[in-house]
């Protein structure tokens, strides 16, 4: 492509989750022009998909939506959603060594300038596909707005599953459907880049001890977030295989953290607290259910976290010290966990109606080969000054914040994002002074 469009900003933020939004807002409020590039169709990242958040137990949506909307309406912050990076580096053609990103706008097959977000297309679409926004636990249409509070409110067409029946095109009041939309490349030039690419859960398919994702009613923790969310797939907590209300729920901690055999030797830092939080929410919605958390060490290290943990114990949530060694399918959709009882009495197998794997965090983005920023042995972005400024990377105009620099909870992420915005602002004010 020869005539690629170039857009210029002060800062490019890669990733529109809570880290990206906060860092963009903190820079935008300083008067810098900040572009957020997000791979998903909506900003909001993992946080907008959560139910409630620890230790305050406030609704994740209510905490995230104001930040999403503040960024979306901020005059200094344009959003580029549903975009892929194809390269991100210093601009070698420019002596000022700014940041240059080549970006592909993926086709939504919907004209964003015409669409009014009315969802008529979604209602008429006859094709149902698995709804990944609900952890694959329910279905959505082949053309749909990803979730209710998505920003922007634009649908995406799942072109793989669309059968081109044309109904959406017919019903659309603004003629926004465009079956012929193509990926479009554009370039962003900026003085600085901030990497806020977040995390993914280690896939449960990778884990043979826990059934490689094949045992019914063994879900991962993000799926449980959806089950607990007020706008979740079933509007209540039901186990996926048969819609039964679970009486006994188990949490398996360190399922892919602190475990060299699973390739993740580090602690994922948030799983203890989210398991405790989910357990508390569950005991609220299923007061009669037994909830057990199998753990090695409870890491309730943050402000108010230990008290939260002690409250959970007082509520009757059972904590059992021991790493679950294996999970097998039991009768009637139950799952059997096997662990060592450390009082010396031997091995226990326990039946649970629903088992949640507190899967470890892995990086959401691998910079190689498109970006030369360096990674540590844990595959997260290297922080070259972890004491004085954990947001500095080996590239002087590239900064990092949030889970892109290692597993991190929301509280620490929000603070670190402010710190990244500060370092980027300092870098830009220095370069102004030097020029």
């Amino acid at each position: 492509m020869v005539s690629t469009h170039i857009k210029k900003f002060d800062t490019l933020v890669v990733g529109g989750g809570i880290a990206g939004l906060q860092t963009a807002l903190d820079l935008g409020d300083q008067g810098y022009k900040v572009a957020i590039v997000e791979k998903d169709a909506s900003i909001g990242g993992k946080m907008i998909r959560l139910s409630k958040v620890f230790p305050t137990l406030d609704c994740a949506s209510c905490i995230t939506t104001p930040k999403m909307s503040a960024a979306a309406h901020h005059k200094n912050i344009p959003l580029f959603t549903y975009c892929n990076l194809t390269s991100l580096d210093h601009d070698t053609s420019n002596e000022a060594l700014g940041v240059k990103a080549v970006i592909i706008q993926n086709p939504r097959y919907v004209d964003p300038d015409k669409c009014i977000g009315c969802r008529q297309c979604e209602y008429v679409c006859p094709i149902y596909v698995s709804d990944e926004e609900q952890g694959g636990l329910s279905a959505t249409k082949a053309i749909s707005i990803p979730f209710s509070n998505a920003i922007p409110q634009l649908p995406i067409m799942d072109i793989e599953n669309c059968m081109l029946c044309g109904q959406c095109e017919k019903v659309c009041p603004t003629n926004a459907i465009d079956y012929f939309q193509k990926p479009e490349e554009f370039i962003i030039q900026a003085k600085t880049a901030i990497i806020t690419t977040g995390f993914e859960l280690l896939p449960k398919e990778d884990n043979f001890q826990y059934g490689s994702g094949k045992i019914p009613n063994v879900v991962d923790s993000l799926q449980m977030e959806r089950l607990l969310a007020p706008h979740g797939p079933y509007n209540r907590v039901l186990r996926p295989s048969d819609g039964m209300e679970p009486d006994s729920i188990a949490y398996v901690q360190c399922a892919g953290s602190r475990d060299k055999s699973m390739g993740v030797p580090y602690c994922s830092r948030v799983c203890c607290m989210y398991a405790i939080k989910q357990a508390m929410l569950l005991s609220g919605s299923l007061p009669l259910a037994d909830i057990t958390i199998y753990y090695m060490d409870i890491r309730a290290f943050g402000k108010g976290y230990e008290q939260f943990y002690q409250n959970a114990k007082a509520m009757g949530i059972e904590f059992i010290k021991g790493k679950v060694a294996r999970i097998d399918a039991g009768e009637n959709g139950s799952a059997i966990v096997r662990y060592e009882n450390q009082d010396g009495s031997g091995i226990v197998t326990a039946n649970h109606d629903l088992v949640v794997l507190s899967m470890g965090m892995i990086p959401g983005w691998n910079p190689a080969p498109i970006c030369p920023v360096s990674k540590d042995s844990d595959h997260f972005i290297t922080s070259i000054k972890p004491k004085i400024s954990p947001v500095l990377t080996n590239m002087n105009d590239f900064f990092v914040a949030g889970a892109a620099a290692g597993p991190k909870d929301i509280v620490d992420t929000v603070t670190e994002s402010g710190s990244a915005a500060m370092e980027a602002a300092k870098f830009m004010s220095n370069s102004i002074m030097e020029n």
Partner: protein
Amino acid sequence: MTEKNTDNKKVGVYICYCGGNISDHVDVEEVKKRAEKMPNVVVARTNMFMCSDPGQELIINDLKSGKIDRVVVASCAPSLHEATFRDAIKRAGSNPFIYEHANIREQVSWVHHGEPATDKATILIASAAAKANLLTPLDPIRVEAKKHTTVIGGGIAGIKTAIDIAQTGINVALIEKSSLLGGQLNNLDKLAPSGEKASEVLQELLDQILTHKSITIHTDCEIEAVQGYVGNFSLSISKKSDNKIEKLNIETGAIVMATGAIPYIPFDGEFGFGQHEQVITLQNLIQILKNNKSTGSILEVNGKRIRNIVMIHCVGSRQIPGIHQPKEDGKLNEYCSRTCCAAMLNASNQIKENFPATRIYEMYRDIRTYGRGQEELYTQASANKVVFMRYEANAQPEVSLTRDSDYPFQVKVKDSLTFNEEMDVPADLVVLATGIEPDDVSGLASMMKLPIGTDKFLLEVHPKLRPVEFPITGIFLAGTCQAPMDVGEACNAAGAAAVKASALLRKGFIELDPFVAEVNPNKCQGHGACIEACLKEGALTLVEVDIDGKTVKRAQVTAAMCLGCGACAAVCPEKAIDINGWALKQYEDMVDAIVSDGFAV
């Protein structure tokens, strides 16, 4: 049809079809006809997409021609397009606050059908028009702000905050109560997990701060009074120098609390502490390792060869009511001190790597090596042959002096890793992993009305939405005055606080929402009920004014401090105070419009 009152405002109503989203369920043309008959409505128009350029043009033209002076748009949820229409009004040269929104998509056409939907849309428009009739142009409140920030506390968080803010062109005063910058960092050695020297980390920052021309450092200072509000605080400070007390005054736009924390000191007899010199705290051990010059296979402390060290975790942290002994003030440290696990393992690894024959036993409740590189410390400690034992909170290790052994101590612990067997560890040295305690800043906190949490640390507004801010606009917090943190975390908090302070002050003035309380001086009788009801101390005051030669009291709003919640409006017997843009009277008229089915007043 009655003659329209000329005193009233000229309201224009603009109703959106939303391409069928609204018009499929709401008879938009019928609603338009009804709207035309509403009091004060001078024009009603419809459009397929009111948010489109042609739709916005309708409003702009009517405003520019003087046909209307108030705008109601009936369309989708205000979260989507309220800002769009306010912008359009601005483009027409009008004040954006003469606008009211009627939500007839999310709250009408998408939830109701047929005639009831049309009727409800009508009523919502009538009530929006009733409110619009009472709307007045508003301007953002502009508060002049000094481009100056005061950072209280010269530890790592304070130093980093000061450097960061100064770098954005804002002058900074750093106030430190002692004569030395660096705070607790002065007492640390190799920092967990990667072993940077605390002194080098500190020196790197000191090199920056000491040469920075926009930062003034005031050591040996006590803050005696804080007054004012965002943009215009004033601090009275007393400075000790050469046995003299010098007074100084700082005028500042924002304040950052970075007052730090202190190590927990065990009570006398806690695991033998204070009764035997070989029972020490983690902080003591760090000092010993820092000053240690000896080499050899065994560590020496106080001239004694240390063959076995027992380290006890969670001393003064994670305390449980009914199990742990409270301090004299009845207080327990129920929180986790966050940094001690990694610091303890770091110290163990240093000892094992330099003095391999010294044996280490760590007694823990949970190992909390949560951070990046910390689990590796734990793994490394295991590889270094540190032995771990796990105790339950209600069965703490017991340290006793021995006479019949060549070890001074015997430490007994019920070890859950060994099937709850009682284990007996002879020891030469007992190290207590003492945690972090909040420093007493109650004096400063009460001067500035800063909230303190149940854990006695300073309390932020919200841990996720506003983690480095206080409810008092213009006052921020950073570092361990908020909660235990390690150096990197404190520096992140410092950066976050700095970015907020510099965004606030960068223009030299602050623009605040115009939605604040306003007193009608003709109605106010100076009862003071509003002041009692006000949720924000200082936002409302009674002042003496001269009316017709008599001195009377009247309520006065400090707009920069008002939250705009309306608590005052509810209690005024004279209805003399109300919230601009969200007035009680507006709601009353809206209710009138609702009960009269869209044809009020």
